[in-house]
């Protein structure tokens, strides 16, 4: 198997996903509507209720809309990661996953390519969201728009790998909805996406600890710092390790010898 084979296969998988996304306008619009509603409605309502102190990476007082923008970027990637995994469960039920799994490439590579494809789609969504937010007077330094690209790649991979791991345990689409509720909402609300840790600590030290160790919080903080041209090393390492752990577990889950595939009787 040559390097060229891997390259072509990866582009085949990524290109297919991007093409599907671009041609499915409803999916594109609905992916944007969710964070925009949070930005235009929820943030406007919360602006008065929540006072924010000056904390890094911010050097001055900021509007609540500015604070939650990285959290909403994380939200886009979280939902996208779960949706990609949902599509894998669907593909598996419909059988089209089999075509991918019987091609002559290592399974870890195929899964990683699927993840990259999903992450690519989420990065597109994020930039469109940031463009709309710019017109809503949410501006970051220009270099921040470049710096977030690699962090979006890592956070997208981490959240996608989590979805992939979940999809390896789920047999039917109906079960996926339940798991989404148990994963997406706790992950999102128990994080620094909507409120800073110190604010949460005022209400509950326990919850703030959970939020601190939530990989989604770390991904959001990594994005937040990158958007202002700064590098949050701890958040980067935490997100990277979470990605590697989720990915390794997902590969085991999709392994025909060790994983859940045989137990579920589907591929």
């Amino acid at each position, binding site marked *: *198997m*040559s390097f*060229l*084979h*891997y390259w*072509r*296969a990866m*582009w*085949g*998988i990524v*290109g*297919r996903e991007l*093409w*599907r996304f671009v*041609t*499915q306008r409803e999916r594109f619009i609905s992916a944007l509507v969710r964070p925009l509603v949070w930005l235009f409605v929820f943030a406007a309502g919360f602006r008065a209720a929540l006072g924010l102190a000056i904390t890094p990476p911010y050097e001055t007082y900021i509007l609540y809309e500015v604070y939650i923008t990285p959290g909403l970027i994380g939200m886009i990637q979280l939902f996208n990661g779960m949706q990609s995994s949902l599509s894998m469960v669907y593909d598996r039920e*419909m*059988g*089209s996953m*089999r*075509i*991918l*799994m*019987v*091609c*002559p*490439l*290592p399974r870890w590579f195929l899964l990683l390519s699927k993840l990259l494809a999903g992450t690519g789609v989420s990065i597109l969504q994020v930039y469109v969201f940031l463009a709309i937010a710019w017109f809503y007077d949410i501006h970051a330094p220009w270099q921040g728009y470049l710096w977030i690209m690699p962090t979006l790649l890592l956070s997208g991979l981490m959240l996608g790998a989590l979805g992939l791991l979940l999809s390896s345990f789920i047999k039917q689409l109906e079960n996926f909805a339940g798991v989404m509720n148990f994963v997406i909402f706790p992950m999102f609300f128990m994080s620094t996406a909507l409120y800073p840790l110190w604010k949460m600590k005022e209400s509950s030290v326990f919850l703030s600890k959970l939020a601190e160790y939530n990989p989604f919080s770390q991904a959001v903080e990594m994005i937040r710092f990158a958007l202002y041209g700064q590098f949050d090393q701890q958040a980067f390492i935490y997100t990277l390790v979470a990605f590697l752990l989720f990915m390794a577990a997902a590969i085991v889950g999709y392994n*025909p*010898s060790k994983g859940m*595939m*045989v137990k579920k*009787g589907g*591929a």
Partner: protein
Amino acid sequence: MSSQTALSIENLTFSYGGKKALDQLGFSINSGECTLLLGPNGAGKSTLFSLITRLYDSHEGQIELCGFNVKQQTRQALAKLGVVFQQTTLDMDLSVMQNLRYHTSLHGLGRKVALQRIQQELERLNMYERRFEKIRQLNGGHRRRVEIARALLHKPALLLLDEPTVGLDVPSRLAIVEYVHQLVAEEKLAVLWASHLIDEIYPEDHLIVLHKGQIKAKGTVDEVLLNTGTTSIKDAFYSLTQGEQA
């Protein structure tokens, strides 16, 4: 093992939990042979296909594709394999061409070779004119043709067909049966074809009758008839599976 052996299976056993789905299976298929796999529902046909394609893994027995062990030399083995699954595995929202290009990229074919092979396979199936149509716009028979074309794009030595004619009208079904037999005769392709339909069997075909995870009969059509003391495949099948439907 002969160099012409496309598929070789020895002592293959597989269980779901404690329930045995396949029990000590053993057979081989040479290039230029079309082997029909007959068996009632639950006989183990789909499980066997999942093991050959390595969607499942067995701890007992071995499967070799063109001399490559499926478990130890998975990639080399899978490169020799073309598959048409029972369920349609095409992307409905993509065109015929996009579906086929996706497959060629998974098999590492370059653009030029891919386009040549796609044209060649689609023309043979009279589908080239429809290459830019979305799969959703095609009828069941045409979708199956696209799937067969796709399975042949990377020039496999063995073609696995898991009941590809189910749900098709008679002309579509006959066209596919004839085309596959033509491939076997002219291109020396090895075919393993799971089927419920006895009229899809040609006199020169080989048969494997699978029942409750065990091979009840194997050989040419004449050999199976001789061994069962029957005069038709239908009678032979009924006697081997005690009246259960294929």
